[in-house]
């Protein structure tokens, strides 16, 4: 049970009433959805490639130990170090130790959802290290003291006006006195501030979209180029990645990249796709002196064992968020989770435990759009349904909800009784609602009628109407 803090319902209600947030996330509906649809329409092989992408991920997961060992051997062969972290705490400890050995005072970070997952910034800051997010969106939310609300577009909840106010307040120290007038000026400030940081950084930390077993490459995809300046200019480069990120070959990565960029942004390719393998070599005039990879398990090997293995196919494109009616209504922060939206609702209970993410599998209408757009065909609605069942079995669902679901389940598994009762309800409802055709209030269903009217039944059940129709034929 969530011990403190507002519930999902309370956070969602607040989000729905927040006009600025609604304006900000409203743009997602048009922008991302339309861009993805265009990119898919322009690419006839998309469906065939989705199936191939699913197969690559399934093949890799079925042989995960082999590919991870091969990947690690390749990194080490190229002079890098591979560290294996069972959980968030161990991952943070490994990174802190690398930073301590490097005498790090400033750490730059490219966008890395795994580092959000393990709470890396707080761990490093507790050691007195300055951590600078370099993705423009991550930089903005860090400056605002917030968390990202979307896994691809961290600032999707913020308007340009809000960011201009934030910079006016926080960028004076960097010599920017006037309030920026538009997005270009705001980004110009980010560029100017971060240029110095890249060179000053002792350690640069990035995530990885893929890890390639064939040659030990870590792949990152950006449009900004921040990941490359982070990894290339610091003295030490650390890659943090989940163990499920490994793929066998560069060809496999290329196929998945075609799916990723189209699904995430509607683009054929992002501006930068970078493959890094190890530290600087003899004769190199630049590049990191040390190269470390921290492979993070944090619940993933448990997922591999059971029915949730398909979730490990996820390539973090966020198409499921962009197409989720719940996410689009309440935004990412209402989930109060590192990974919001449909993929997060499955992933968070797996990596954080049901206790910390109990409500998330219920923040879903099971409409199925997420599964339709998932580039690796993760059956998200099925997994969410299964999580609800697991929660029930584990006793997480209590009180009226448990009683109500038990009663419903009892009735629904007795068809004869169900039909008799449905006939009575349909007849009574039809009679009572005959004048208005709808109900403004229903006992035990105020949660529904507070927001809209319940249409009155037509006096007969669907089953009866269907039987009658067949008789007529």
């Amino acid at each position, binding site marked *: 049970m969530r011990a403190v803090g507002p519930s999902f319902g309370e956070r969602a209600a607040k989000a729905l009433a927040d006009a600025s947030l609604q304006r900000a996330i409203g*743009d997602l509906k048009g*922008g991302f959805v339309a861009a993805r649809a265009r990119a898919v329409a322009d*690419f006839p*092989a998309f469906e*065939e490639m989705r199936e*191939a992408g699913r197969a*690559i991920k399934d093949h890799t997961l*079925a*042989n*995960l*130990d*082999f590919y*991870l*060992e*091969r990947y*690690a051997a390749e990194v080490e062969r190229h002079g890098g170090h*591979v560290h*294996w972290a*069972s959980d968030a705490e*161990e991952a943070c400890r490994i990174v802190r130790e690398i930073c301590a050995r490097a005498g790090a005072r400033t750490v730059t970070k490219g966008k890395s959802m795994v580092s959000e997952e393990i709470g890396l910034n707080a761990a490093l800051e507790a050691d007195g290290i300055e951590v600078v997010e370099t993705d*423009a969106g991550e930089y*903005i939310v860090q400056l605002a003291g917030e968390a990202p609300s979307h896994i691809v577009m961290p600032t*999707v909840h*913020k308007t*340009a006006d809000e*960011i201009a106010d934030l910079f006016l307040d926080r960028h004076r120290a960097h010599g920017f006195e006037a309030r920026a007038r538009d*997005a270009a000026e705001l*980004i110009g400030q980010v560029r100017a501030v971060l240029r110095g940081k890249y060179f000053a950084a002792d350690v640069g930390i990035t995530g990885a979209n893929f890890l390639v*077993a064939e*040659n030990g490459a870590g792949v990152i995809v950006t*449009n*900004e180029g*921040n990941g*490359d*300046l982070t990894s*290339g200019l610091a003295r030490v480069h650390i890659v943090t990645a989940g*163990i499920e990120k490994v793929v066998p*070959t560069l*060809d*496999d990565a*290329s*196929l998945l990249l075609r799916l990723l960029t189209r699904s995430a942004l509607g683009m*054929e*390719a992002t*501006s*930068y*796709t*970078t493959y890094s*393998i190890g*530290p600087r*070599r003899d*004769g*190199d*005039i*630049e*590049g990191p002196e040390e190269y470390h990879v921290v*492979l993070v398990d944090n619940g993933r*090997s*448990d997922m*591999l064992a059971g029915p949730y293995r398909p979730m490990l196919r996820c390539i973090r494109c966020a198409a499921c968020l962009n197409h989720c009616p719940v996410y689009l209504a309440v935004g990412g922060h209402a989930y109060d989770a590192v990974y919001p939206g449909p993929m997060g609702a499955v992933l968070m209970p797996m990596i954080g435990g049901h206790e910390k993410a109990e409500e998330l599998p219920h923040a879903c209408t099971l409409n199925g759009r997420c599964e339709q757009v998932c580039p690796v065909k993760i059956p998200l609605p099925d997994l969410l349904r299964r999580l609800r069942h697991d929660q029930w079995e584990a006793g997480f669902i209590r009180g009226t909800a448990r009683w109500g679901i038990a009663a419903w389940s009892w009735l629904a598994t007795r068809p004869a009784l169900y039909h008799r009762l449905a006939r009575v309800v349909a007849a009574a409802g039809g009679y009572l609602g005959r004048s208005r055709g709808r109900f403004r209030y229903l006992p035990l269903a105020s949660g529904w009628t507070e927001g809209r009217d319940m249409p009155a039944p037509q006096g007969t059940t669907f089953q009866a109407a269907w039987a009658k129709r067949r008789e007529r034929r």
Partner: protein
Amino acid sequence: MGREAILRRIRLALGGATGADVAAQLSARMLHPPPAPVPQGEGDVVARFIARASANLIAVERIASLAQLVPAVQSLLEGGEDDARGISVAPALRHVGWPADWAINYGPGRIVERLSVTEAFAGIAETGSIVMRSAPETPTSLNFLPDVHVVVLHAGDILARPEDVWHRMRTSGEAWPRTVNVISGASRTADVGGVIVRPAHGPKRVHVLVVGG
């Protein structure tokens, strides 16, 4: 430690360690990746490259030989505000007859130079991308620090798809480069209000000079 614990959990989940025969099959799969669906593209790769790169707002210019490189860069400098500031040139392109009075940085990228000239390993027609390979003669920082990134790409190095580039690297007999940058446009972001702004952290313009062909 962590490594053995994680591998043990994975093997438990998968029902045992990989047998020698399966391991041999998996190794073979890595050496010879199985056929996979690829986007179809027809016609001349150079023309397709130019069309896709232009669609991504990369400026593409054709020159007959490297002898035309210096004049091409000169006209780019004259068109902009950058002529007096000096440029960075990848050591690979040191000997193409740069004017003696130009202030040229042949070292790693710096903030002061606003324009860099580098050489690509390959081009990809499918996406109009250039493939940059790190080496002492082609430093990676030159791809990211300047405002204007000028790239020399030999027409014969333009391949249809990324898979062809990987095949070329696998069969070259050379070690994998430390860093490979596949660049498909200028640096951009939409993190402020969804408005696309160029540049974010990297170059605001990419200018490709296709040599020969």
